[in-house]
């Protein structure tokens, strides 16, 4: 635990623990979604994690052609 906090930071470790708690909650109660796909175990967790990574990846790849100099319009 101490090692984790040292390596990963206090806030980051707290978020990690929250993630685990919310996964355990799903095992305790019955969670269902608005659509049948969402009924898959831990679906929102996977979806949230993957979405964030995909958004980041696409965002970074867009940098090469959407990002211009700060004075681009003033030239």
């Amino acid at each position, binding site marked *: 635990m101490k090692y984790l906090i040292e390596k990963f930071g206090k806030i980051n470790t707290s*978020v990690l623990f929250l993630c685990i708690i919310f996964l355990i909650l799903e095992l305790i109660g019955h969670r269902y979604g608005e*659509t049948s796909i969402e009924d898959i175990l831990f679906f929102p967790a996977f979806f*949230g994690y993957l979405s*964030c990574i995909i958004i980041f990846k696409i965002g970074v790849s867009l940098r090469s052609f959407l990002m211009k100099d700060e004075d681009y319009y003033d030239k």
Partner: protein
Amino acid sequence: MISSFPPGFIMIIGALLIPFLPHIIRQIYMMILILVSAYALTLGFGIHSKIEIMDIQFIIFQSDSLTLPFAIIFHIAAILNVIYGAHEKNWNQHVAIMSYSGAAIAAVHAGDLFTLFVWWEATAFTSVFLILASKTKRSYRSAFRYILIQVGSGMFLLAGAILLMSDTGNAEFRSFDINSLDGQLIFIAFGIKAAFPLLNGWLQDSYPEASEIGTVALSTFTTKLAIFCFAKSFAGTEILIIIGAIMTFYPIFFAVIENDLRRVLTYSLNNQLGFMIVAIGIGTELAINGAVAHAFAHILYKGLLFMGMGAVLYRVGTCKASELGGLFKFMPITAICTIIGAISISAFPLFSGFVAKSLIMSALGKEGLVFVYFMLLFASAGVLHHSGIKIPFFAFFAHESSIKTKEAPINMIIAMIIGSALCILIGVFPSYFYAILPYQIQYQPYDFSHVVGQLQLLTFAAFAFICLWHFKIYPPELNSTVLNSDWIYRKMIPGVLLPLLNLINDINKKVEQFFEFIFKSMKRFFADTMIKNKVFDREVGQDTLIVVQLFIILLIFIFVWKIYL
């Protein structure tokens, strides 16, 4: 007397006195104006005031279950704006904000398209001063583009209203058919103000150029007025589902790479408008309630986020993520309020975003629109990324910057605390919030599935960001300009048009030169012929006389032909 004028009208007229009042009295006076305006909301539903000019009836004050929630939140936002801007001693922005808020409130109560048009344009002309208030070269240029586009939107509305009037004999502000030409013109007018895809450039161009007070006001009224208009006139129009889904989706990527945090918020605004547009497109009672609830909640939490960034701009002079960081120790209250706004927009349970967004997601699920549902779910993770984490993280934490500053002025703090309290109260007591929505429905946002599902989605999305940052995969923020749809009229059209105009100019010159040459040659030829043949001499040859006579006959023939045939 009070029922003769629409709510908001007193604010516009009252704003004329603001320049003559001393600083603090001015703020109290503005508060009184807003409260007097709000009193008109107690008159109940129905048509309260109409006038007739040249046989045309103008319904200037009507209210119903849709106008009420918008009128309430517009008045609350106007009060928050007055408190937030209380440190500003110059009267210019106060006049602009008061008349801008008043025009938006009056527009909501318009019962016909011509009255709506008047207030529609009034919001444009009053709000442009908030962009000009920055007094920079960029803001002047941006304000010019802003007013052109806003007035352009008004022209579409006017054209639609005139066409409708000529077709049906009245221009009542009601539900319209997207398949008719008048309906399409009105749809485009609303679409420009709602920042539809490719029509959204003005939003990201102008709002971040406004003053710190101005952006808070701008984020409240213009786009939400468009949402109100869509809810009133195009509820259930299916194309809105597609347009809204695109709106939720694509601004996320722009927000991720944008460096200016106020501009990030404008992309986020665009994305949130998408949720509302999708709900209006669905058009069921649950969905319309969702759209209105989302607009209501959004005004509060987006206003709160803009207030937080405005406070940072006011104290530090910049809102660029690359230059900010570590401000939490200097501005802790601002930081906490901004975090509350960020949690609300991310739709964490017990905050306003959750109780509003749940309505829309449930409406989508009930209608079986699975693909759009997942697009919006994906966009929800994106909202957490750019507004929930990026805004507070890069402004108040991230890396230590050399900036040393102090907490925001007390009036800004009061406005932010009220905004934060409202975000939490709506989240904790949703039943009171749902009671003011257009349709009375039974809906319970806090069930086990909703709460656990949402918490899993958000915490794991946050964890993904933490991993990216911790393992140094997340690239540093850079000073840059991110190209948006305004590039079309700022770079592409001038880039294509200017060479084209130059080419036309060159061709024109060449053609002119050619004809000049022809005329000169003809002139020289005839002159030579006349002089050489001594046409004007007393003694002329017979051949010359024949030429002259033939020429005169030809002239007479043309003259007769022109007149009689």
